[in-house]
């Protein structure tokens, strides 16, 4: 950061990696760390994290949700900010935790305090830090899928597009119905696969109709689902998390693509 003198203590950010990034695509986590560090933040990745609790929450298992929520609050509340490379998990912490704990004064206060400093990654970079972007390049025609929770719970829409506009050689083209659900919906995707698959097919068709060669988004759940559907339909679009492209870490295989054979 340029203004070291004015800003003596760097901003301390905890990364909530999300269970999907942790297990399925660590590159997204490293991309998020690099972006945050490039923006001048000190990044900590607390070890005692697993998941934000949405699978329990969305399946009506209230006591498990509360137990996991308390754990997340305890681990993350001491940092200046909590940043999440997912609108869905970000929305869980910011919109849902405070309401979940509404019957418990101590915990509702702690949940509310956590909510106040929780941000989705691109939202944090643009709205809080004013990050202008690094020197990353990505040569491709990209289209962007707005994930529902990010869009409707957190208002994430302009931020990723603004950051992508600063990526060299990247061109963005909007598809029809960018704000229609892709049909992932967490455990919905495996409980009602036929409906989920139909919504994915609609989304993939909309993306393909743009002539884009790459589909980007801010939620790995949607992206795994859409990449899997594209593979199944034999479509050739590459799928990346927006953080990978912004951090210049999208040179490897895209989601669902094999490693280049040696």
């Amino acid at each position, binding site marked *: 950061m340029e203004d070291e003198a004015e800003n003596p203590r760097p901003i301390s950010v905890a990364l909530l*990696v999300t*269970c999907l990034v*942790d*297990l*399925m*695509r*660590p*590159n997204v*986590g*490293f991309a998020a760390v690099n972006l945050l560090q490039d923006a001048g933040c000190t990044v900590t990745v607390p*070890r*005692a994290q*697993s*998941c934000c*609790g949405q*699978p*329990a929450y*969305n*399946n*009506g*298992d209230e006591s*498990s*949700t509360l*137990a*996991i929520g308390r*754990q997340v609050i305890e681990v993350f509340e001491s940092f200046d900010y909590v940043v999440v490379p997912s609108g869905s998990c970000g929305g869980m912490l910011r919109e849902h935790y405070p309401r979940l704990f509404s019957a418990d004064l101590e915990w509702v206060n702690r949940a509310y305090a956590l909510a106040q400093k929780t941000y989705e990654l691109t939202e944090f970079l643009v709205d809080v830090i004013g990050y202008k972007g690094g020197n990353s390049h990505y040569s491709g025609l990209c289209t962007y899928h707005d994930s*529902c*929770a990010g869009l*409707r*719970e957190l208002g994430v829409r302009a931020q990723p597009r603004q950051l992508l506009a600063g990526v060299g050689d990247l061109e963005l083209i909007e598809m029809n119905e960018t*704000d229609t*659900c892709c*049909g*992932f*919906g*967490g*455990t*919905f*995707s*495996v*409980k*009602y*696969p*036929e*409906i989920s*698959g*139909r*919504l994915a097919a*609609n989304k993939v068709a909309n993306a393909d109709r743009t002539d884009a060669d790459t589909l980007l988004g801010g939620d790995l759940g949607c992206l*795994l689902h859409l*990449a*899997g*559907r594209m*593979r*199944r339909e034999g479509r050739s679009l590459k799928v990346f998390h927006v953080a990978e492209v912004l951090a210049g870490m999208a040179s490897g*295989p895209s989601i*669902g*693509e*094999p*490693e280049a054979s040696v």
Partner: protein
Amino acid sequence: MSTTTQTVTFGEQVDLALNNVSLQQAMGRAESGFVETRRHCVEAMPEFEALKDTARDIKEHTLEHLDSYLEFFEEKVIENGGTVHWASSGEEACRIILGICQQADARLVTKGKSMVAEEIHLNEALEKAGLEVVETDLGEYIIQLANEMPSHIIAPAMHKTRSQISELFHTHHQSLGYVDKTTTREEIVSEARQVLRDVFVSADVGITGANFLVAETGSNVIVTNEGNGDLTSCLPRVHIITAGIEKVIPSLEDLSVFLRLLARSATGQEMAAYTTLYTGPRRDDDPEGPEEYHVVLVDNGRSAMLAGNYRSMLRCIRCGACLNHCPVYTAIGGHSYGWIYTGPMGAVLTPLMTGLDNAYDLPNACTLNGRCQEVCPVRIPLPDFLRQHRVRQNQRRLGSGLSRRVVSMWAWLARRPRFYQAVMALPVRLLSYLGRHRGAFEKLPFGRGWTVVRDFPAPTGATFQQQWQKRKRSEP
């Protein structure tokens, strides 16, 4: 799901719907039409979001004092020369309405579109007693001929294509002298108008719903695009209005707020073609109008809803915006929901009215994408209500025991992060090794729920936590 009228399971119904070519055709066209027209209308009205707040507040206020407003309304109706009947259940409402019809020696009854009448199975009750009942809303008329339930609360025959309607008319209208099959939109509508014209003038009783009841004046308000509601209300000797108790609003001033929201939200029109206020029976100097004016106020579970956690569901003005914007509804059509209330509002209402165990899938077959709540003109938190249903289902151990066990096992692990990380690292390592040359799996043991419709992208190496710990160790 098995409700009163259906024995096919939700899953079977969904499979049928997804593979029904004409349904998919009909739904695709209708849905994108309503969504686009609404978008244009809303964009042209900067105060739309503020108006939604006002509408929500008016409804909340009215629900808070519902008993008083209903009594104000009743007083006014009596003052105007009409009668108000109170029905606590659907059966009671049907009995009251049948009684009025019999009192009037009715044989032929015309009906405007009314979701409450569908809810209480009014047609069945009247027909069983020997009355002839004819639906006069074009969509309702079509599904009456087809002997089906409505699939959409404002466009009941949305699931039908034009050629299906053409066939249906051909089958039913030949005996009335319409020998040639009509195929164009204009011909079909014109044939329906001719057939219904005769019915309108000879009906003894007209039954309509009400979009709103105005306490200040004792009026019922009907909003339609076909004018059939007016012919049903004015021409017969007796006019009966069926309405849920939540339909009352305080004043005409309030009505203006809802009229600005309703058509925009429903069909993307600034106003529907016909908006009519009916205030009592024909007065001496009126050129026309019914001799008797009856309002049947139906509770049927609503006051229980008023007292519980789902109260704000009673704000619903039945515009259908949540249906039109629901990707699941659009994919599977209204009939998959198994009852007359469909889409997100139906997924909330049906379990409340027919039982949580009767309608297990409805609250669950939703991605919680939140678009319904975003477009709702009275800001009903529909996704939260669906989650509440899930909590109650979980508490009552409804649904698949296996999926409940998997979630609670996973939650147990998630509460022990170190152990969780160690356990999860094993399948991740295995799958990333097996998947490194193919990138994704077409099939996985225990993974059918995923792989039946899409490949499973392989994890890419060790977990983030493992790699992060390794990186930290190697740092000075």
